[in-house]
């Protein structure tokens, strides 16, 4: 909707406005404008993290389960997979964890795939995944080579 509204706008004007905002929301301010591959967003300043944290219930900082982390790691490594493939690689049923990750918006449905005449849904990492882990791309995770080295040791 915003895109529609802004379609006649000069893009450079928006860039300039964002640039100005970034400069203003910077340094030791409580809220800063964060720029990443996922775009711009207002977030709390990292230097006040511990203070801000005190005001929020621990519910806001609930950590992901081992099962969730494994599925995200699998999708980061293998790309889009079906539920059956995910369960296969993990050696255990993963449907409830997948549902949770979908609800949390960390994964998304990414098309369909036909396996032996049966159509299955493909799952992949969502944009929100990168926001959640505060990274720009998968390059910020250890590379497969690095991991393989660790396993070899």
């Amino acid at each position, binding site marked *: 909707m915003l895109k529609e509204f802004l379609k006649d706008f000069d893009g450079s004007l928006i860039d300039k406005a964002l640039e100005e905002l970034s400069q203003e929301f910077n340094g030791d301010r409580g809220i800063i404008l964060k720029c990443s591959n996922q775009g711009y967003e207002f977030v709390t300043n990292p230097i006040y993290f511990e203070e801000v944290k005190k005001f929020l219930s621990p519910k806001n900082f609930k950590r992901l389960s081992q099962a969730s982390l494994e599925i995200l790691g699998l999708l980061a*490594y293998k790309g889009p997979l079906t539920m059956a493939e995910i369960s296969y690689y993990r050696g*255990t049923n993963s449907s*409830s964890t997948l549902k949770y990750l979908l609800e949390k918006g960390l994964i998304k449905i990414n098309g369909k795939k036909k396996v032996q005449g049966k159509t299955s849904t493909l799952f992949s990492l969502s944009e929100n995944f990168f926001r959640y882990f505060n990274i720009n791309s998968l390059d910020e995770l250890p590379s497969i080579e690095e991991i393989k080295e660790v396993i070899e040791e």
Partner: protein
Amino acid sequence: MEDGFRIDLGFFEGPLDLLLFLVKKEEVSIWEISLTKITDEYLRYLEEKKFINPSREADFLLMASILIHLKSSRLLPKIKLEEGEEDEEYALRDRIETYGIIKNFAFALKKLEESVNIIRKGKVEEFEKQIIIEFPSLYDIAKAFIEVAKRKEQEESIPYRERKVSIEEKISELLSVLRIENKIKLLEYLENSKSIEEIIVTFLAVLELIRRGIIIAIQRREFGEIEIKLWRKGSKERRDYAQRIN
């Protein structure tokens, strides 16, 4: 959220883990695994267990038999693997390798998750509730008081020491009150205590006086108020008590 499929034995969990763990422990590729060793270790593991999960053990048996099949095919010369078997071999290797990789990825993601130091949103209702109920906590307030008290002490250095009441002192206090007032309502009396310590001392003093047979504690009905009175010869209470125990 966690799948109830795993049994935690400290050093391994799940059939794939078991294999991976053993592969790692042997420090050989899956092509050089000693199947006897794996079988022995698996049997020992089964013996140690009181309960087994049939579907898990079936998984292990399936994989072990694939391994045995692959290995025996390798050991016998000039027998080419059939097409399906080669696929199987590849699939198994892929699965084990992938499993090791996602375990490591999961660990890396966990570390990342812990390092996130920005907040995008926190529910406003929770935020308000938090301030009313938990912020600042009693502990915070107490801490502030202690700090101020410490500072004051340093500044003025007024020798202030709470007077400690001994049990004997409390006993004579109780007795002198009882001589004048006939009875003491225990709860009311305790509420005038200056410290927890004094409450405890009073409690011990009351018990001591009861033990020595000097006073009696009376509760006229269930959950009613407890009163203490002097244990006088010929008093109504003493007659009641004598009747009860006879």
